[in-house]
């Protein structure tokens, strides 16, 4: 008999949607900062000023959200746990990873039936967390340049010297595009799994519930 599982606890869902909104705002404002696509008709406007203000505000929001989600990896249920992001550490995880990968590449017929993340998705999210942390660190390293000797410059300023001022900007820019590429993939895979798994993949990230047939697990 089908059962309703409470999989995604509220901190997981809230941080997910804060990340979505922050990334949307950060990409738009960040893109403007990189190449201003609007020109102010007169000096009384404050377009770049607002774009930078929003970028820094959402940067802080995003940082808090990512930090909270990482904290929840040690508090939340086993789907939210940090262990869920290293599926290939177990025999079963490796087996399901291959099964899922074969399904995606049209070489296998069945989806690995999971309550939480499937192993391929979990691996992708591990990479995404790494990119998140990269964006946060590189972003605040560059942000700190306005105040040498200040908080951000003291803790992260050395990275600008190590990587180079311009390369830091280039990488921050490039990773934005990688994240946009990931979002396209992520939404597509969510849609595909919603259709094929028939267990509420899409609604799960709103409600937290998934509809599972325990016998098929």
């Amino acid at each position, binding site marked *: 008999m*089908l059962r309703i599982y409470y999989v995604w606890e509220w901190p997981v869902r809230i941080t997910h949607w804060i990340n979505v909104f922050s990334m949307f705002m950060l990409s738009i404002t960040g*893109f403007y900062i*990189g*190449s*201003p696509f*609007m*020109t*102010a008709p*007169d*000096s*009384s*406007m*404050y*377009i*770049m*000023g607002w774009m*930078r203000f929003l970028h820094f505000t959402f940067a802080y929001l995003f940082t808090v959200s990512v930090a909270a989600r990482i904290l929840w990896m040690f508090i939340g249920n086993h789907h939210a746990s940090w262990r869920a992001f290293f599926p290939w550490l177990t025999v079963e995880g490796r087996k399901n990873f291959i099964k899922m990968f074969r*399904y*995606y590449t*049209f070489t296998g*017929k*069945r*989806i690995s*039936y999971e309550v939480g993340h499937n192993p391929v998705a979990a691996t992708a999210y591990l990479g995404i967390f790494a990119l998140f942390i990269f964006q946060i660190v590189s972003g605040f390293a560059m942000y700190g*340049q*306005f105040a*040498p*000797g200040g908080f951000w410059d003291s803790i992260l*300023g*050395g990275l600008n*010297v190590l990587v*180079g*001022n*311009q*390369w830091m*900007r*280039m990488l921050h*820019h*490039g990773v*934005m*595009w*990688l994240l*946009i*590429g990931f979002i*396209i*993939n992520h939404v*597509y895979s969510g*849609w*595909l799994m919603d*259709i*094929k*798994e*028939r*267990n509420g993949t899409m609604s799960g990230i709103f409600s937290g519930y998934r509809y599972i*047939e325990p016998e*098929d697990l």
Partner: protein
Amino acid sequence: MKTDLDVVTPSIPEEILLRMEAKGISRRDFIKFCTATTAALALPISMLPKVAQAVEDNRPPVIWAEYQSCSGDSEAFLRGNQPTAGEIILDLISLEYADVIMAAAGHQAEENKLQAMEKYKGQYILIVEGSIPTGADGAYCTIGGHSAMEDCKKLVQNAAATICVGTCATFGGIPAAAPNPTNAVSVSSLVPGATIVNLPGCPVNAENLTATIVHFLTFGKLPAVDRLGRPKFAYGKRIHDNCERRGHFDAGQYAESFGDPGHRQGHCLYKLGCKGPETFHNCPTVRYNEGISWPVMAGHGCIGCSEPGFWDTMSPFYRRLPKVPGFGIEDTADKIGIGLAAATALAFGIHGVASCFRKGDAMEEDKVVKED
């Protein structure tokens, strides 16, 4: 109670001014020089008499060594600024050796250098201009039969302090730009751990050099430096944060091309690739050539000449971001990014269409109820 009115502006003792006049430096020029230098060092004005005293008392021996360079820093210094700081400082220091301006030549000049080094061992100030090639055992640059590597190491090790002027001596500069055929390096990488202060810039700003020397004379030590060994008084702030066009940047008013209406109205040069946001230097406040102007004031974006690896990383000079390695010169990071996003969307779109036609792979097939 102490009020602003009680603060007495300190003045330079009359005797010093008289002695300077006897040397042919007018009191007005000397006061201007000392005041400007005190201000450049971000010292309180109460330090003025101390600075004047230090400048008068000491006549430190200075050796100016030049390696792979264009002599641009020597030129910048000699072409001077404020009542010829160059002149004043040349009167105040004892310049033992300087390729560009010394009268001696050949073996005689080298002899002088060696003698000065021996005589003032551990006391002289060394100023280095230009990078040091290390390729082919240093054969790319030799002075009097000795390689620049050998010469520079010896001079740095025997100096009280070394001041690297210009981006070549501080970070390798243009000779060290890719592919760096002579394997040029900076002084600090040639002699790690030495007492060195870096004054990058292409060329160095003469005011900053003068101020560094005066700091050394006044306090007996080099000024406080940042992570790249640059004095904080001169490289402690970003050009962008002190720029006179900053208002236009924040408003969103940009010159789109040289000579367009925005450019003519003095709008921000950000979209023309100005590297002010990436560059730490006091150009907007000190300016060049007797404080007359500096690149952004003249209508050209900053090219980031005082940052490490500027020739490779700050170029293309008219673009915001460096060239992406492995791609064509016209490919910007954004073009590549849009291509990546489009390719991802296309690939998953095709995958999605194929998946729609796939049969028998959906779960819970037996539980599906078809409604009438």
